[in-house]
């Protein structure tokens, strides 16, 4: 099953979203969070991103969904060292993209299908 890493400036945001994914998608999807800076304040830490990727990787690949700005930079820093085509950073709305990714992963979707589901969230109107 494809794993998902949620990278947020806020640990609470990432954990709350992770809870949603377990209920709307499935608790079986390996979802791991990297939230907050190393000192617990708002921010992102490359070390916690790297740890979350390792935990989420079950062999079928990992999709990383960042919330904003420097979360993207933290992920890119980590990916410079990993450089694996099984680990994909996707540009997607944080909540909607993560929910779509989790449901697709829970359905047995491939790394490409899960990434696409997250990206397509941008084009689905909420109303």
């Amino acid at each position, binding site marked *: 099953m494809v794993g998902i890493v949620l990278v947020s400036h806020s640990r609470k945001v990432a954990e709350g979203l992770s809870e*949603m994914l377990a*209920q*709307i*998608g*499935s608790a079986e999807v390996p979802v791991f969070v990297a939230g907050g800076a190393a000192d617990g304040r708002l921010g992102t830490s490359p070390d916690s991103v790297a740890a979350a990727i390792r935990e989420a990787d079950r062999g079928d690949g990992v999709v990383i969904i960042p919330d904003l700005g420097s979360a993207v930079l933290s992920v890119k820093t980590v990916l410079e060292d990993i450089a694996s085509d099984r680990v994909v950073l996707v540009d997607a709305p944080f909540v*909607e993209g993560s*929910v*779509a990714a989790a*449901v*697709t992963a*829970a*359905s*047995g*979707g491939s790394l490409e299908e899960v990434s696409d*589901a997250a990206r*397509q*969230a941008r084009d*689905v*109107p*909420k*109303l």
Partner: protein
Amino acid sequence: MQLGRPVMSPSSERTVRMPVDLHARPAGEFTKAAARFQATVRLRAGAKEADARSVLMVMALGATAGTDVTITASGADAADAVEALAALLAGVGA
């Protein structure tokens, strides 16, 4: 040309009245169930229509309790898909 053989893939359709609102969690269940079939499945509520494999589109239908939703499927296992998905929607909240 062979007579009596369907030229198009089989299709099936059924309408279900939602017993409760089609919220996020049942939408997730519906999407996951739809993905188990080969058939292409769509869900229609009023003027809105969703690809059953997109949980976000299914949620955005805004199908509240009492709304009639129509499941359409086309593909080899269309009939099975419609039957299973109709049962799932009819049983939501039960």
